[in-house]
């Protein structure tokens, strides 16, 4: 019977794939509608027709209404409007079909209560084999006897089936001897042969394999227990335990070896991530981001954190080498929420929060400043500028940090709908974020839409799509770092000046002779408008087809489309743009990155002991960037802002740029598991990059890994302490290609000069070629151990690694006599080695639950080789003197400067020291390192290191009844921060305000050994004074939630409220706002501060509803 049916269907389909699918759907649909009651035969049932003549449609309808039979047919092949004429009024259904069949030239076949219509050209009416069906009822429960609702019960080999109700009961009709297939997600399927029993009791056993966490790795997934590489995971629950604006935040303190730094506390400010230290000098050290398979998404600020289902971080070479030339810095894989089978779930999440300045820097007030300045002038032999009257009763005493900041408000709303059936699943969400920054007027608004769809077009063909559109508008104030921006003015502005004078004009520091001339911070924040509007669309579509059993072909195409525009206006009311009469800028960026990936995967278990999972593929990716900018000065009125550049009488030359790069890759991976105990992974990728030289376009990145599930060995049986034990080893090579474009080819640069008073353009030397330029290569070995104790109540993961990066992509200095400064070459080596620990423990597991997750990671970095001569390199960011140095034998992140010994207390000390003959008592003593009697660049040395010795995270979660509490503490230890602020705030008196610590300055009466006398000249040498301990322990997040008891409420599933605080404490000796800082950004900006945006402390109230 089965074969006949199959043949019939094949006949119907005539080999045409989509026809087949459609017909199967139709047949399914028709056949599932029945399945109850005693079957009748068409020759047993008589029917009286209402009229002797009717069309096919009416005929079918009448039979379906008056008898238990239903028709199944292919709409396209049957003309239902055709008229049928019947000669007799009464007759059996079979006789009727006989008549109809002759007129329609079709055959009919009865199967149970379904009548299949088969267009054959001849007429046969037949009843398919005997159907002895009997009603069967049953109950499906789990091992604990709890009913399982929604389990599928299917008569094997047919399309007959049903699902269990809320109490786990089902009923259907099946013939004796039929096999029922009972299945439910997360349980092992069971086969029951129908005997003479009519009431079945079926117990499903949990499927350990499918219950197990599935981990996303590049181009596939594996069960967590089958992992051979080092992969860090943050699951959905943990991700959403903090209010997030940037998804990178969800990683902070949670994965060992992954250091996440929030380097600008401005709304939407960027994060920097280092995975297992810094490998590179001139190329990026940031990991590769892959969002739903789209590779190379620049940063995570465009992904709505609420949409994220899981984040996986690939750390070792075995895991990352599938990303080849882009894998060396680790890979962050983001998977977004998709629909699941079941009734629609509607979620609403809402958060309201406010934040304020977590730390304030103590500055001099008006009287104190005036006193200091007078003292400085007197020391320098000049007439003081302030009278005693002014000092005692300053007219204004402005606290600029107070004036320039505020309590900022934040709200975030998200609606999501997730659901689907076996055929199609959907996940749709809409989000809105409105976040104010604590500095006046800084603000981020963002709206997102996401649509994720999955369709089983057939049981062999799957179609999936992910689409997200993100629109944000951001008023930024943290640009122009190092310049006189608001965060700097907030500290440097004179306290004796008001925000505004009586006539309504803003003060600026040049209002006082000798002042550097910064506009006051409130003026900058209120008057400069700097908007970044970004629309970003990420879309991906894949088709997966099971060509033959176990072999799947997947074709996917994705695009990342970015449109950014910047509108800037600095008005005529500010000092900086007063003389140029305003400055208006408009610029935009358009970027398109597309990718196509074609993979074949094969998965099979042979003889029950060889588990093979292999994939190979070819991918293409191309990125194109275009930008355009125009600006003008000389606006007649501030009214126009950036909206009418034509009004400016001094337009600046327009700018534009265009570039693209492309990658073509071949990749493959084999996972082989023997006896579920010995796990092998071999993977490789060959990447071709347009960024490299003619002779080195393609690079090959292989890796291999072996893991051993020791706990599954026979000798581990019989003991109950170690429940899980796995040893992992891996070695592989990955690359880094993240340098700019065109670095391998020569170019001419544009020059501007004036001839006869006119702008004249020149084209001259730009760059010399390096046809040998290639990727940077990082080889990494990893050894790890996963241990589970006492039924996995305590689990421990340890990883140790050694990485060496060769052929560094170094923007290597050239002798200036060439006329060039540097060229990208592959020279140098860097190593990183480290060890990581992670412990998860279920401390208490009763009514009261207490879990602890703790992680700690250590990393050591060393530069092994630099250039041919191994000369030191000063990579910047640079201030008045160099901040950083790269030196063989020293870590990346070494800080450079002089050593301060203290303060000269008297003339005698000046004479004894000898190297600072012009110094006076009260001046700073520097170490004459080479003892040549002069303080110069030869006396600089390495005075610090911005790379931490270790990072840790400590997460405790508590659940009691309906309450849950999470407390997360995060820390970084052993790193230095170079704080440039004292340069201006301690050693440049009279031009700007100073730290309150200046009150403890050296005077003959107060022999301070740390703070020099106040004086009118300044000292700008970067020294040990500017290196501070950047270690900190931060109360990252504390969140208390309450889950309402909703039993018996059908319309609502979950309701949770929570209150949380971020950055709720910070323990650090650092003198700035926050030691987690990078004012200048870039590879070497980490841990270097020059008046950064202050870090807020944030409080949030949230509501989460699930319907």
């Amino acid at each position, binding site marked *: 019977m089965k074969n006949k049916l199959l043949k019939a269907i094949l006949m119907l389909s005539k080999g045409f794939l989509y026809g087949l699918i459609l017909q199967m759907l139709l047949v399914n649909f028709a056949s599932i509608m029945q399945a109850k009651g005693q079957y009748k035969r068409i020759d047993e049932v008589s029917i009286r027709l209402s009229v002797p003549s009717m069309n096919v449609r009416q005929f079918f309808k009448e039979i379906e209404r008056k008898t238990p039979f239903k028709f199944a047919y292919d709409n396209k092949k049957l003309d239902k409007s055709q008229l049928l004429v019947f000669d007799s009024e009464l007759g059996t259904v079979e006789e009727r079909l006989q008549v109809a069949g002759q007129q329609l030239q079709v055959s009919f076949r009865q199967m149970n209560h379904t009548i299949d219509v088969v267009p054959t050209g001849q007429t046969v009416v037949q009843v398919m084999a005997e159907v002895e069906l009997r009603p069967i009822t049953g109950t499906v429960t789990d091992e604990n006897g709890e009913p399982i609702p929604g389990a599928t019960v299917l008569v094997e080999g047919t399309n007959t089936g049903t699902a269990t109700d809320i109490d786990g009961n089902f009923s259907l009709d099946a013939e004796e001897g039929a096999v029922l297939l009972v299945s439910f997600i997360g349980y092992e399927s069971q086969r029951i042969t129908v005997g003479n029993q009519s009431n079945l009791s079926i117990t499903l056993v949990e499927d350990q394999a499918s219950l197990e966490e599935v981990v996303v790795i590049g181009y596939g997934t594996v069960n967590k227990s089958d992992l051979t590489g080092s992969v860090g995971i943050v699951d959905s629950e943990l991700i959403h335990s903090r209010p997030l604006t940037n998804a990178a935040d969800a990683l902070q303190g949670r994965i060992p070896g992954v250091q996440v730094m929030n380097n600008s506390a401005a709304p939407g400010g960027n994060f920097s991530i280092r995975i297992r230290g810094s490998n590179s000098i001139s190329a990026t050290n940031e990991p590769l981001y892959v969002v739903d398979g789209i590779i190379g998404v620049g940063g995570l600020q465009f992904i709505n954190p609420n949409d994220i289902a899981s984040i996986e971080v690939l750390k070792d070479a075995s895991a990352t080498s599938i990303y080849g030339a882009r894998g060396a810095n680790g890979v962050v894989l983001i998977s977004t929420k998709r629909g699941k089978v079941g009734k629609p779930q509607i979620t609403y999440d809402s958060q309201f929060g406010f934040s304020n300045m977590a730390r304030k820097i103590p500055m001099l007030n008006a009287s104190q400043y005036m006193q200091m300045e007078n003292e400085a002038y007197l020391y320098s032999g000049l007439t003081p500028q302030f009278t005693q009257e002014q000092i005692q009763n300053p007219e204004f005493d402005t606290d600029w940090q107070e004036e320039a900041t505020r309590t900022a408000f934040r709200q975030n709303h998200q609606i999501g709908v997730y659901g689907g059936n076996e055929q199609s699943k959907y996940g749709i969400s809409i989000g809105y974020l409105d976040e104010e920054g604590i500095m006046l007027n800084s603000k981020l608004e963002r709206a997102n839409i996401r649509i994720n769809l999955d369709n089983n077009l057939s049981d062999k063909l799957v179609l999936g799509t992910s689409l997200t559109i993100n629109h944000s508008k951001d008023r930024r104030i943290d640009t122009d770092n190092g310049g006189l921006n608001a965060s700097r003015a907030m500290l440097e502005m004179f306290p004796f000046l008001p925000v505004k004078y009586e006539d309504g004009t803003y003060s600026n520091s040049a209002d006082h002779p000798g002042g550097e001339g910064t506009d006051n911070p409130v003026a900058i924040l209120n008057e400069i408008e700097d908007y970044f509007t970004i629309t970003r669309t990420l879309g991906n579509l894949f088709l997966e087809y099971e060509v033959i059993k176990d072999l799947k072909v997947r074709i996917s195409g994705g695009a990342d489309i970015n449109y950014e525009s910047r509108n800037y206006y600095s008005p005529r009311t500010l000092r900086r743009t007063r003389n140029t009469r305003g400055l208006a800028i408009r610029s935009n960026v358009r970027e398109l990155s597309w990718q196509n990936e074609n993979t074949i995967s094969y998965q099979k278990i042979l003889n029950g002991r060889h588990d093979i999972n292999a994939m190979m593929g070819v991918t293409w990716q191309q990125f194109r960037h275009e930008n355009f900018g125009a600006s003008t*000065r000389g606006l007649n009125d501030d009214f126009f802002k950036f909206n009418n550049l034509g009004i400016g009488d001094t337009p600046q030359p327009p700018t534009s740029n265009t570039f693209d790069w492309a990658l073509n890759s071949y990749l493959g991976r084999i996972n082989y598991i023997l006896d579920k105990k010995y796990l092998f992974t071999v993977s490789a990728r060959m990447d071709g990059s347009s960024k490299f030289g003619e002779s080195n376009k393609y690079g090959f990145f292989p890796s291999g890994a072996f893991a051993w599930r020791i706990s599954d060995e026979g000798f581990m049986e019989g003991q109950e302490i170690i429940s899980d034990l796995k040893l992992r080893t891996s070695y592989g090579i990955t690359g880094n290609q993240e340098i700019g474009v065109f670095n391998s080819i020569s170019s001419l640069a544009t020059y*501007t000069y004036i001839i006869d008073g006119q702008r004249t353009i020149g084209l001259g030397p730009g760059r010399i070629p390096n046809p040998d330029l290639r990727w940077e290569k990082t080889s990494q070995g990893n050894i790890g151990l996963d241990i589970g104790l006492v039924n996995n109540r305590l689990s421990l993961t340890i990883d140790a690694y050694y990485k060496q990066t060769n052929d560094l992509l170094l923007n290597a200095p050239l002798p200036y006599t060439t006329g060039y400064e540097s060229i990208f070459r592959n020279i140098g080596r860097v190593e990183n080695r480290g060890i990581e620990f992670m412990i998860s423990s279920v401390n208490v597991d009763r009514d009261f639950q207490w879990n602890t997750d703790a992680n700690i990671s250590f990393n050591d970095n060393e530069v092994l080789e630099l250039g041919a001569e191994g000369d030191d390199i000063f990579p910047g960011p640079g201030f008045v003197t160099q901040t950083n140095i790269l030196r063989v034998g020293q870590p990346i992140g070494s800080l450079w400067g002089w050593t301060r010994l203290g303060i000269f207390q008297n003339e005698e000390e000046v004479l004894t020291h000898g190297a600072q003959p012009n110094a006076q008592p009260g001046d700073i003593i520097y170490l004459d390192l080479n003892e040549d009697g002069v303080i110069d*660049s030869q006396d600089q040395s390495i005075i610090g290191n911005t790379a931490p010795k270790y990072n840790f995270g400590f997460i405790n979660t508590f659940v009691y009844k309906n309450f849950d509490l999470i407390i997360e503490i995060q820390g970084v230890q052993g790193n230095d921060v170079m704080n440039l602020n004292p340069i201006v705030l301690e050693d440049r008196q009279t031009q700007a305000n100073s730290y309150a610590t200046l009150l403890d300055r050296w005077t003959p009466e107060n022999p301070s050994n740390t703070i020099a006398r106040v004086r009118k000249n300044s000292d700008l040498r970067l020294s040990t004074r500017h290196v501070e301990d950047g270690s900190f322990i931060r109360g990252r997040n504390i969140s208390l939630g309450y889950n309402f008891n909703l039993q018996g409420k059908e319309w609502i599933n979950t309701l949770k409220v929570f209150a949380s605080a971020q950055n709720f404490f910070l323990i650090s000796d650092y003198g700035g706002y926050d030691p987690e800082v990078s004012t200048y950004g870039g590879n070497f900006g980490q841990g270097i501060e020059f008046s950064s945006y202050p870090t807020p402390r944030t409080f949030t109230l949230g509501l989460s509803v699930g319907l």
Partner: protein
Amino acid sequence: MKNYSLKYITLFLILSLGFAGCDEFLEENPETFISPNAYYRNAEDAQSAINAVYAILPRFYQGIAYGESVFFTLEMPSDQADSGTGVSVVDQDRLDAYIYDPAIRHLRLWWQYSYQGINAANSVLYYVPEIDMSENAKARILSEAYYLRAYFYFDLVRLFGAVPLTVEPTLNISNVNLTREDVTVIYDQIIQDLINAEHHLPVAGSIEAEHGRATKGAASTLLAKVYLTLERWEEASNKAEEVVNSGAYQLFDDYADAFDVENKNGKEHIFSIQFERTINSSNFHAWFLPRYRGIQANTEEFGAILPNMEFYNSYSDDDYRKAANFIQVIPQLMDLVS
């Protein structure tokens, strides 16, 4: 079976489609700049090649940071000027104190800018002769390149003594480590370049002369200065005489007029580096103003460089240059905020 073969065909198609790589895909095709090989084709290309050499000149007089500028290399150690007090600088204070530390950016940048100019001039001399263009225009452009190369080397040899000599543009990274040449070799090259330059440069004031471009007079004057430096007195005198007698230049009646902005590119100016506020501005004058006194509108006043008092006092009070060269009264301070 028919279905299976269809599947294999599909599979094969997908595979062959995917693996059929194309070399063009990974080729870089810049659209915003041009490679030297595709350039130097016509008279306009030659013109913009020489413009790029001139464009190096202003770099010596633009700011580095905090009121510092490369030309202070020569001013600070002199007896005329002192580094301004209260200015946030380190390097120029050391120049003022005769500390010649290799880390001083002024020294490094002078060296770097000079060789940038030399390399750009060498590029002109390397590529332009091959261009099919008017021989007159070509000769003039080459002469300008000779002039500018001599200009850069003359400063270099006087500042650093024996320096590497290169008369070819740098085209790749082979052979980039040059050794120093004897001072006499450098001077020989300078003199040869200036003699080459003199012939085809226009005379100042002629219709071809343009403000900013080298003239015959500029080349001869520089040559006179070179001879003077080498103590070849007679040649120096003859060259200088040539310039004086050329009739192309005259002294201003008033000494101060030579420094008046109104007389930019005036009759007494032989060769001037050109600036325009909105195009390539320089804060040159601001460095000479007392710090933050609100004296002038367009730039900050850095107070970076101050006259040496001894030097100032060395002028007798009735010396007109004293009044012309110095501001003797500090302009009125802005009133303190009351």
